[in-house]
């Protein structure tokens, strides 16, 4: 009993148990690929693949077993979650940009390494506001 993992991480478990292991045809025929759960699982996996792909980490794409799975997932429902991730990322980037521009002297963004630039960024921003008003 010692050394067992009483609660293996569900993600680790599902990725192994659902479509790994010896496949032998049972008497009770269930085509697992037709089943919605697999779609859900694929959607989750594909979402992470898309997110990682945004960062250019896509070397597993060349693994045929994975890429066929990924493309199958994309046909179904993967787009929603990947768009969500993209929107979320955009939102974060916008906030981050705004924070950098608003508070160039706050200590909480890496941009503050360049403290001497802070002033210029601030004035550039107010100039930007002005310009936008004028051009409208």
């Amino acid at each position, binding site marked *: *009993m010692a*050394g*067992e*993992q009483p609660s*293996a*991480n*569900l*993600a*680790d*478990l*599902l*990725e*192994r*148990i*659902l*479509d*790994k*292991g*010896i*496949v*032998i*045809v*049972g*008497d*009770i*025929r*269930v085509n*697992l690929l037709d*089943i*919605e*759960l697999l779609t859900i699982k694929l959607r*989750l*996996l594909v*979402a*992470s*693949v898309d997110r*990682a792909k945004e*960062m*250019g*980490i*896509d*070397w*597993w794409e060349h693994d045929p077993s*994975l890429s066929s*799975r*990924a493309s199958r997932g994309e046909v179904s429902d993967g787009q929603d979650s990947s768009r969500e991730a993209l929107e979320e990322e955009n939102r974060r*980037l916008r906030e981050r*940009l705004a924070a*950098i521009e608003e508070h160039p002297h706050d200590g909480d*963004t*890496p*941009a503050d*390494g*360049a403290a001497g*630039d802070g002033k*210029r*960024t601030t004035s*550039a921003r107010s100039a*930007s506001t002005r*310009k936008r008003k004028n051009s409208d």
Partner: protein
Amino acid sequence: MTDSSENAVYLYGVTRGLDLAALGGSPGVAGAAVRDVVAGDLTALVSTVRLDEYGEDALRANLEDLGWIEATARAHHAVVDRAARLAPTAPVRIATVYHDDERVAQVLHEGRERFGAALDRITGRSEWGVKAYAHPEDERPEEEAMTPAAGTGVGTAYLRRRQEQRRRQNEAGRRLTERAQAIDAELRVHAVAVRRHPPQDPKLSGHPGTPILNMAYLLDDARVPEFQALVREIGERSPGIEIEATGPWPPYSFIETDGG
């Protein structure tokens, strides 16, 4: 004879040389007792289950219920995991169900060469999972290195900043890919076989970092300690990267999945 038509036989996996008593009598799926069906030198681990839960229609519905899946997956895994620690065990995919013990014995007999080969491949070995995550905030180098060129418009400066941000992101991605590949290259030297899993979604794994690596390595039992030490060491010398090893797993990822 009474209600055998309402029952079926659930198969967990195929093992060789396992003493069933050593399994400890813990229940399997749906709380059912774990039994063995023996054919030649092969032993199938099975439970009697009810068709109203494991019949065709019931399975189709149940497999869409994540709660049911989780309970069944954990029960399935618990049986396979205990067996794999005692004797070489080839897990069977979840929800493989037969009419009765005779059918299971027949499947063992007909597939004896294939099962034998699979068991030979994993004897004295175990599967180890390694995942790595990057924490982007630790990864960001000197930002804002570029200064808006004097005299250019603010819109241009903004676009340039965005462009620079994207460039940095791509660069970070490339660096992470290289680090992930370097980690894998170091680890796979110790493995008999390697499988790549897709990176896990943070919603499922609950991990906040960016998943950059999710591998399974089949290790000779003797090499496990040095493998674990290497994982630890890589973690220590990799700032911004979190690396974790899980195992031993039954060799789920190293049983061939075709030819059924």
